Each structure stands twice: as C-alpha cells, then as structure tokens.
C-alpha cells in the first residue's frame, strides 16, 4: 500500500476489513495498554507535568502567531551555517526538490531516517520511479518497506505486524542468508536487520531525515530517536536532507526543552529518548566526519491555510502519537483503515486540512468524542472540538450521507420547536420503557442495530431532563 492514493473515503469498509483481520487484531491487542500504561506512569512521576503542558501550549501559540517571522529568522541561521533552505508549497514541490538534490550528486541509494513528511510527500515512490533506491533504516520502517506497506502509526510504524510476519518478511528479503538460520526470537531478528542495514549506511550518497523541531535561535534541526538509525543516515552520506513542515519551528533552545520534556513521556513513557541530535549546517572545515551538504526542505502543503482558522491549534502537534494510543477507534481498527499518512485523532483533524474534506471527511466521524485524545495531548489540542468543526463543514458542503442529513433535519425540526420536542421525548421515553418491559434494557431497537448488535440499550429511567429541571426550580 502506498499513500499516493488515499483510501480515506473508504474508512468504513477499511474498518470492517481491519476488524476481520486476525493478524492485525493480534498485533493491536499486543500493543494495547503498552503505550497507555507507560505514558501514565511517566506523566505521574513529574509533579510539574501539567504546568509544562500549559507552557508548551503557550509557546506553540506564540510561535504560530509569529510564524512568518520565526521562519525568516530560522532560514537566516541555517544559511549562515552553510545550509540551504528549500521552500516547498506542495508535496509535488518537495518531491522535485529532493530528486534534484539527489541527482546533483548522482545518488544511487538514499538512506531514510523515519520521517512522516516524506510519507506525506510520497518520496520513496518518486525516487524509485526515477531509478534511485530508497532504504528505510528505522527498524519498523524497514519491516514495512519489505512488506510494501505504509506506516500504521506515526511513531511505531510496524505496530500492526506480528513477529511471525516479520520473520517471514526477513526470510524472503534476506535470501542470501542460510535458510536454516535461527530467527526464533526478537533478538535474532533485530540483530539480522542491524547487520544488513549497517552495510547500507556506508553505501548511500544521500541521507534523508525528518525533524522533530527546527530551532529559530540556532538554525538547528532536531531529531529524536531510539535506534540511532537517523544519526547514521544523516552522518555517513555526502548529503543530508531534512524534511520538515512549517509548524516544527520553536523559538529557542529553552522552548525545545519544553517540547523534549513532553515528547518522550507522552510517546513511549521514556523520560528522554535515547538520541536527541541537534544539527546545524554541513561539516565544518575541521570536521573529520558528517555530510558535505545540508539541505532543509520546508513543507507547507496546506498548513499556511490552517493558520488563522479554527484549525490553527492543530499546528501545535508534536507528533507523539499519544492521541492514537489512547483512542478506542484506533485501538480497534489500527492505522491503515484511516487510509492516508496520519491516523488516529490527530489524523482525523489534519487529513481533511491537507487533502480536503471531500477526501478526508470520513475521518472526523470516526470518533465517539470520548475525549481521551485531548486529555493526553501534551499540547492540549482540542481534537474533539476540531473534529466537530469538520463535521459542520462536511454538512455545509452537503457531503454528509443523505440518511444522516435527513436524520439531522428531522432532529432540527423538533429541536427548534421546544414544546413539540419535550412532548416527543416524553412519549419516546414511555415507548422505550414499554418496549423494555421489566428488564430495563433493550436487546434490539428499531434503527438502532448498530448499537444493540454489540450491547443492550438501557431503557430511559425516571423523567426527562426538562421535567426534573422544572421540579428542582420549584
């Protein structure tokens, strides 16, 4: 699967397939709780965690409100350090820029650290189509590249793959190794990937990484990783290309500290990821290693259009993945069902912004509005509220399915006539109570099969809210 053609409009059927996929369900069950418990423990150990979240939100709000100025400042620092900043308005621009840089050094192989911006731009397919081999070096990304899949999670790209499936992929791809070798546990699998990729690090002419942050004060790009692959990918080849979107800007090193204190704890429950690397420019004249060229591709791809709208706050996102780890919908169907680069609640808000509500409008509907995403978001992004905004836009654009539109109009008809509405609810309650008989629960409900297929519907108890309100005021 590639992201060239979003399957977001098919979210419903994607989800049905995901629920019926036994391997996927095994992998998701295995991951469930893993992230949730670790994040909770890490957050609980920091008594100032809430204040740091507030500070993070304020810092990002300030940055976004002055984004034009910080971008100019950042660009000036990168240039002063001998680096190049390339502005890309669209994914197509980014593909063209990356290919031009690769061609300028006759690159045959390009090593990739983990970058979602590269996924968003479809860099791998574009390089391959032009005769350049992209090699994913993050272990999870390597696994899914062998399986010709897209990541299903923004920080754990292969979270949907079971261990036996990984073994099968390795046996198929590493056919030059003895077929009877032991790959029975995680350690031997990881060792094999380590050995194979170690050689690749020394072959590539270009290394592409993402950036967790861009710092205006210093002109540095920052990557945060656990494996060390991003650093090998950017240190060994002749050329380092950083792919980052506009909203990765933070003003100063002190502001970067705020993000670092939130990021790993929210993502994996670590206090600090293993490698946090600050890079500025190409190797200096006295440096014995490091890239000779340093390029930053700054991607807009729809983000500047979010600034000044009700979706601006989404640009505070630091891509920790906590929202999807805690989302009951994501936990049930995994990331591929969302059909494009960004899954889970952050994807449900970001996707329609980037590829349009016509394509991505299904995703904001994939939420029960339980609010767990917002409660764990380190940047306190009001994700449910923004999903609601998308639902409104979808309705305004008449993209909502006719049954839902009809239902909403019917509801609106009553809601605008309070007397009729109250009479209706009173009658409805009585009817439901009678249907439930003495059990107080309904095993099936007309038009409510989606609910009662999995669980009983509780019959209404007592009086309507308005009746209780009137009585209490008396």
């Amino acid at each position: 699967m590639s992201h060239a053609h979003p399957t977001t409009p098919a979210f419903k059927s994607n989800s049905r397939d995901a629920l019926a996929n036994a391997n996927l369900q095994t992998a998701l069950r295995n991951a469930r709780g893993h992230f949730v418990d670790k994040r909770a423990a890490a957050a609980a150990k920091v008594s100032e965690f809430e204040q740091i979240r507030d500070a993070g939100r304020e810092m990002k709000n300030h940055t976004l409100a002055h984004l034009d100025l910080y971008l100019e400042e950042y660009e000036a620092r990168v240039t002063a350090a001998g680096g190049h900043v390339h502005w890309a308005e669209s994914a197509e621009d980014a593909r063209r820029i990356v290919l031009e840089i690769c061609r300028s050094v006759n690159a045959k192989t390009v090593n990739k650290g983990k970058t979602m911006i590269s996924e968003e731009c479809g860099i791998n397919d574009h390089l391959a189509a032009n005769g350049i081999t992209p090699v994913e070096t993050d272990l999870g990304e390597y696994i899914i590249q062998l399986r010709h899949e897209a990541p299903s999670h923004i920080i754990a790209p292969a979270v949907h793959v079971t261990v036996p499936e990984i073994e099968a992929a390795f046996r198929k791809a590493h056919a030059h190794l003895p077929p009877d070798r032991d790959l029975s546990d995680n350690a031997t699998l990881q060792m094999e990937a380590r050995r194979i990729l170690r050689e690749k690090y020394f072959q590539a002419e270009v290394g592409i990484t993402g950036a967790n942050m861009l710092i205006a004060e210093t002109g540095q790009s920052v990557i945060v990783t656990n494996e060390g692959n991003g650093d090998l990918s950017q240190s060994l080849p002749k050329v380092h290309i950083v792919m980052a979107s506009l909203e990765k800007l933070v003003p100063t090193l002190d502001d970067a500290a705020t993000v670092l204190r939130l990021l790993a704890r929210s993502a994996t429950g670590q206090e600090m990821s293993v490698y946090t690397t600050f890079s500025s420019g190409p190797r200096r004249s006295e440096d014995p290693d490091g890239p000779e060229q340093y390029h930053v591709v700054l991607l807009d791809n729809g983000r500047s259009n979010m600034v000044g709208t009700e979706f601006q706050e989404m640009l505070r996102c630091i891509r920790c993945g906590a929202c999807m780890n805690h989302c009951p919908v994501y936990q049930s169907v995994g990331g591929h069902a969302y059909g494009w680069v960004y899954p889970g609640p952050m994807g449900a808000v970001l996707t329609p912004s980037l590829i349009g509500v016509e394509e991505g409008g299904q995703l904001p509907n994939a939420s029960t509005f339980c609010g767990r995403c917002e409660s764990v978001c380190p940047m306190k992004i009001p994700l449910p509220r923004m999903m609601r905004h998308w639902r409104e836009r979808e309705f305004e654009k008449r993209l909502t399915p006719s049954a839902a539109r009809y239902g909403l109009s019917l509801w609106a008809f009553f809601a605008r006539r309070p007397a009729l509405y109250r009479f209706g609810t009173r009658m409805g309650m009585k009817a439901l109570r009678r249907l439930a008989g003495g059990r107080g629960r309904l095993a099936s409900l007309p038009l409510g099969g989606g609910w009662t297929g999995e669980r009983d519907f509780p019959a209404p108890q007592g009086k309507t809210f308005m009746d209780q309100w009137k009585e209490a005021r008396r």
Partner: protein
Amino acid sequence: MSARDRILGRLRTALADPERPQPEREAAVAARLRGEGPHAPVPAFAQAHGQARLTQFMAKLEAVDATVSRVSSLPELPRALAHELRNRNLPAEIRHGADPAFAGLDWGAISASTGIGRIEEPATLSRARYGMAETGTLVLASGPDNPVTLTFLGETHFVVVFEDDVKAGLEEVWAGLRGSGLDPRTVNMVTGPSRSADIGQKLQLGAHGPVALHVFLVSGSGLTDA
C-alpha cells in the same frame, strides 16, 4: 513570486492583526530570541545540586540501561578501560578522537587508534562535553575531538565525563553551550544504549547504535588532571 514569498505572504495575511502593528510583533520575536521568555517552569528533577546531582546522574544512567564507574583521575582511565574491556570479553582495542583529555595517556596494553568510526568498531571512546542529571543524558559535541561516527558505530560505546561537567538539567546545558561559544555541527544527546521496540512491541537493546554504553565519571574538571 517564489514559493517562499507565497508561503510567507499567506502567513502574513492570515496573521495580520490590526491591534498589533508589525513592529510590535517583531519586537516580541526579538525579545523571545534574546531569551527574555516567558520561560516554562524548571522541574525539580532538573535542579539537583552538589552530591545529589551526581547521585541522580548515576541512578538515571542505570535506569536507562547504561553502566557507570568512577575514576579518580584521568591517568587512571586506561586501567579502568582495560578492566571494562576484559570484563566484556572485548579485544584490547579502542578507537577515539583527538580530544585533549586522551592526549598523552599511557594506554598500556590497549591498542588505541585515533580517527572516525568505521563499519565495525567493537569499542569506541568519546568525551562528553556535559552530563545531565535530569535524565542520565550525555551531551557530546561533534568535531575532530569527538567524531560523531564514534558515538553511533561503536558496538560498545565508552564515554568519559568529568564530574564538574555534570549539569542539573537542560537549562544549564544550554547556558553552558551558549557561554562556551561552542558551535559544533551536531550536539548529540545520548541517553542509554540504542534500542527498538519495533519487533513485537518488546524493547530490545542494540538497534543500530551501540549495544552497550559505559560511562567513566572522572573526578574534578579534567583541567587540573590533564
């Protein structure tokens, strides 16, 4: 008009605020870049002092699967290193950079070579510019003294850090970097040996970087010893 101008133009239009003229916005940015804040609260675990700071640093190192030993003075380093290499069944070889801390040391039976990291490096040695008690992090500055490839290609990575260079938290590290005028191409923060949970969501040490990380915490500032 270039892509740059169009992107910045869209942002300027979207962010234009009749209540806040452009000079006022520019002044706010300049003030923040000068370090005038506002600043986030510095958490208590990033403010340890004195002996408590060293204790926290060592405890955090162990919590992230690194090991640590104390060395009383720099000339003692070769013996401490030989001991570690033997205990780990590693060959008596070490690869390091041109850091002044290593110059003039008598490596004894250890075959020491200077240079960048190669494809197979059983053991490499670096000096961290700072240690950070906040999270058990080593802060390395790349350059001829400590080539960045040694940090990532060593199967076992040994790192020297002087006690006086152990900082409480990120804020102190920034102050140190800004104050010393150090401007390395990369600043590498290392918190434990490399790891991945991409296979079956089970954490496994030794992904692409070092499988093991050992810290020699050397007394004093290094200046008096060297």
